[in-house]
C-alpha cells in the first residue's frame, strides 16, 4: 500500500461523507448524520496513516523531510486539519450539520491536490531545510483550517438570516430547523476564530523568526507576508467588531467570510498571481 493510494481513498471517503451530509440536510434523518460523521472520521484516520506513510517514504528515498514542503503537501495537510477541527466541533458541541458546510472544503482541497497537482516527493531545496518550516506550516495551517470552519459556520448564519427574513415560520421550520440557532452559530463562529487567531499570530511570528534566522530580516513586506498581515487585520477587526455596538451577528459573519477569502488568497492567490520569496516548490529563492 502506498501513501498515494491511501490519499486517493481519503479523497473518495470525503466525497462520500459530503454526499451523505447533503442527504442529511435533505432527509433530517439522525442516523444519516451519524453516518456522515463516521465516514468523515474514517477518512481522517486513513489520511493520517497516509501522511505518516508519505513521511516514511521520503526517508526511504533518502530525501527525508516532513510532508509539508510544497503546494501539494500543504493542501493535503490543510484538508486534514479541517476535518480534524470538524471532528472536534462535532464531538464537543454536537452540531453535526456543520459537516455539510465544512466537509466540502476538505473535499475540494483533496480533489484538487490529487487530480491537479504533481504528487511526487521532492527533495528539500536549501531554503526550506529548517525545523522552522515545521513550526511555521503547522501553526499557519491549523489557523487556516479554523478560519475555514468559521467561514462554513458564517455561511450557515447568513443563509439562516436570509431564510428567516424572507419566509415566515412555515418553511423556517423546514431545513432551517436543522441549523443551530443564530446565537449558537454566532458563538461557534467566534469560538473558531478564537482558535484560529492565536494560531495565525503564531504562524506569522514563526515565519518572521524563520526569515530573521535564514536571511536576517524578520519582515520584508513580501506579498505573502503582507497578505498574512491583511488576514490578521481582518480577524482583529472581527474581534473588535464583536465588542462594538451594531457590529455583531450579520456583519461579524460577513467579516468572517471576507477573512477566509483573504486567507485563501494569502495561501493560493499570492502564489498564482503575485511573486515573492514564498513560491512553494519553485526551487531555490
Amino acid at each position, binding site marked *: 500500500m502506498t501513501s498515494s493510494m491511501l490519499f486517493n481513498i481519503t479523497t473518495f471517503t470525503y466525497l462520500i461523507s459530503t454526499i451523505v451530509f447533503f442527504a442529511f440536510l435533505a432527509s433530517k434523518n439522525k442516523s444519516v448524520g451519524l453516518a456522515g460523521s463516521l465516514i468523515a472520521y474514517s477518512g481522517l484516520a486513513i489520511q493520517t496513516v497516509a501522511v505518516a506513510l508519505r513521511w516514511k517514504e521520503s526517508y526511504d528515498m533518502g530525501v527525508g523531510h516532513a510532508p509539508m514542503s510544497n503546494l501539494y503537501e500543504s493542501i493535503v495537510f490543510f484538508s486534514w486539519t479541517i476535518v480534524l477541527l470538524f471532528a472536534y466541533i462535532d464531538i464537543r458541541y454536537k452540531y453535526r450539520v456543520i459537516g455539510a458546510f465544512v466537509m466540502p472544503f476538505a473535499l475540494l482541497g483533496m480533489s484538487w491536490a490529487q487530480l491537479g497537482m504533481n504528487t511526487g516527493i521532492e527533495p528539500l531545496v536549501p531554503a526550506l531545510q529548517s525545523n522552522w518550516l515545521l513550526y511555521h506550516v503547522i501553526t499557519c495551517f491549523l489557523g487556516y483550517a479554523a478560519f475555514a470552519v468559521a467561514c462554513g459556520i458564517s455561511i450557515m448564519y447568513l443563509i439562516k438570516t436570509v431564510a428567516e427574513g424572507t419566509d415566515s415560520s412555515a418553511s423556517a421550520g423546514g431545513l432551517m430547523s436543522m441549523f443551530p440557532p443564530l446565537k449558537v452559530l454566532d458563538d461557534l463562529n467566534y469560538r473558531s476564530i478564537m482558535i484560529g487567531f*492565536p494560531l495565525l499570530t503564531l504562524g506569522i511570528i514563526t515565519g518572521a*523568526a524563520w526569515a530573521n534566522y535564514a536571511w*536576517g530580516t524578520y519582515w520584508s513586506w513580501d506579498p505573502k507576508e*503582507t497578505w498574512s498581515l*491583511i488576514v490578521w*487585520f481582518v480577524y482583529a477587526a472581527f474581534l473588535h*467588531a464583536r465588542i462594538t455596538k451594531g457590529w455583531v451577528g450579520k456583519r461579524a459573519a460577513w467579516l468572517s467570510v471576507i477573512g477566509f477569502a483573504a486567507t485563501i488568497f494569502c495561501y493560493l492567490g499570492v502564489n498564482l498571481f503575485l511573486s515573492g520569496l514564498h513560491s512553494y516548490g519553485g*526551487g531555490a529563492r
Partner: protein
Amino acid sequence: MATTERSFITNVWDFFCSLKLTLFLLISLALTSIIGTVLPQGALPPEYVAQISSTKLQIYTKLGFFDMYHSWWFIALLYVFSLNLVSCSIKRLPHVFKFISEPTLVLGEGQRNSFSLKQEMSYSGPIEKGKERLLEFLVKEFSTPVITEHNGEYHLFAQKTAWCRLGVYVVHLSILVIFVGAIIGSLAGYKGYATIVEGTSINAFEGRDGQQMPLGYEVLCEKFNVEKYANGSPKEFRSTLTVLENGKPVPGYSQVKVIVNKPMTYKGITFYQSSYGQANDPSTFFFSVKQRATGKTEQIALRPKNLTSLPDGRTATIVDLTDNPGEGMAAVIGVSEKGGEPKYFKVLKNYPTMDDMRGDSLVFIFTGTDAKQYTGLQVAKDPGVWVVWLGCTLMVVGICIAFFMSHKRIWVVVSKGHVRMYGNASKNQAAFQMQFEDISEKFQEIKI
C-alpha cells in the same frame, strides 16, 4: 468660548478612544496594504516602466505607491493606530484596575435580576450561622470570599483570576513593543550585501544605498561549494568563512560553514548565505590520467586551444564544458594521434569511475578547474530584534490570557428566609455554567 474649547478637546479625545476608529483603521490598513503586493516596490524594473503610462507613473510615485509601506500616509495610519491604542488603554485601564481592586461586594436588588446564573434556597436559621457555614463552603468549593453586611443581609463575594481582564491590554502593549523594536532596528541597525571571491577577504560591505560600510574586521572566504541532489536540484550552498582580526584568524571563527538557514554572527553582525556565482571563466582544467596497463597515474592540466601531450605521446585539448542537471559539470576532451583526427569524449566530474568504461588505454578523471566561485552574503545587524521577540512573546501570552482564561465571580446573599447565589464569568460562560451548576448542587445539599 471655554466650553466650546473643552468640548472640542473632548471630541478629539472621544474620537481617538473610539472602537469605530479601531475598526476603520484595521480595515484601512488591510485594504491599503494590498497596493504594495500588486505594484512593484523599490527599484522599478524597466519592463514595468515601459508598460505603464507616464501619468499613472507620476501619480503613483507622488502617492508613494512604489514604496508604500514607508510612505507618509501609511506611517501616518500606523501613528493614528498607535494613538488609538494608547488612548483606549488610558481611558479603560483605570476602570479595569478599579474593577479588579474594588469589586462589587454588595449586590443591589436591581442587579440581582440581571444574572442568568442563579440559585436560591430557603433558610430559616440565624443568618450569622448561615454566613459562617457558607464562608466555609465557598472556601472549599471556589475561593475565599469577602463578607459585607448590608441592610441586615450578609453578602459573600468570591472571585477567581480577576487579573485575566488585563490580558487584552498585554496584547495591545505588545503591539507597541513590536513597533519600538522595529524603530530601534531601523535607526540603529543596517542591512547590506557582500560578495567574496574564494581565497580572498573583505573588510567592508555594500549598504542599502550603495555606500561601503566598514565591518571592523575581515572575513575570508576559504571555499564555496554547491552540492546537488541526484535529480540536479540544489541540496546545499556552503561558504567556508574565517574571521580575521589584524590578519589572524579569530579562535572559534575559523573555517565556519555557513549554509542557508545557518548563518554566522560575529560582533553583532550576521552573515547569511544568499547567492553565489562564478568569479572568472575557467582557463585551466585539471585531470588525473591513469595508464590502464601499468596503473601509473599522472596529473595533467588542459587548456582550450592548447595541445597538451599525454603520457603515451598523444595530445589532448578541451573543446567544451557543460553543466547539465542530473549530470553536473562535464568536460569534452579531444584526443588525437600525431597528425590524426581528434576523438571526442565526455568526462563527468561527479562520476569519476565512468571513463573506465570507454576502454581506452588512458583513463581520465576530472578533478576541477581553476575557476573561482564567489559567495554572496546578506549582512545584517539589528539591535532591535530582541525587543520585537519580546513583543511577540507578550502578544502570544496576552492572546492566550484574553481568550482562554476567564474572570469568574460568585456572590452569595444570606438574608432572613433565603440564601441566594449568583454567578458570572467574563469568557466562556457555557463552561462556567457547568461549574456553577455543580457548585449549586452541592449548595443545595449542605446542611446549614
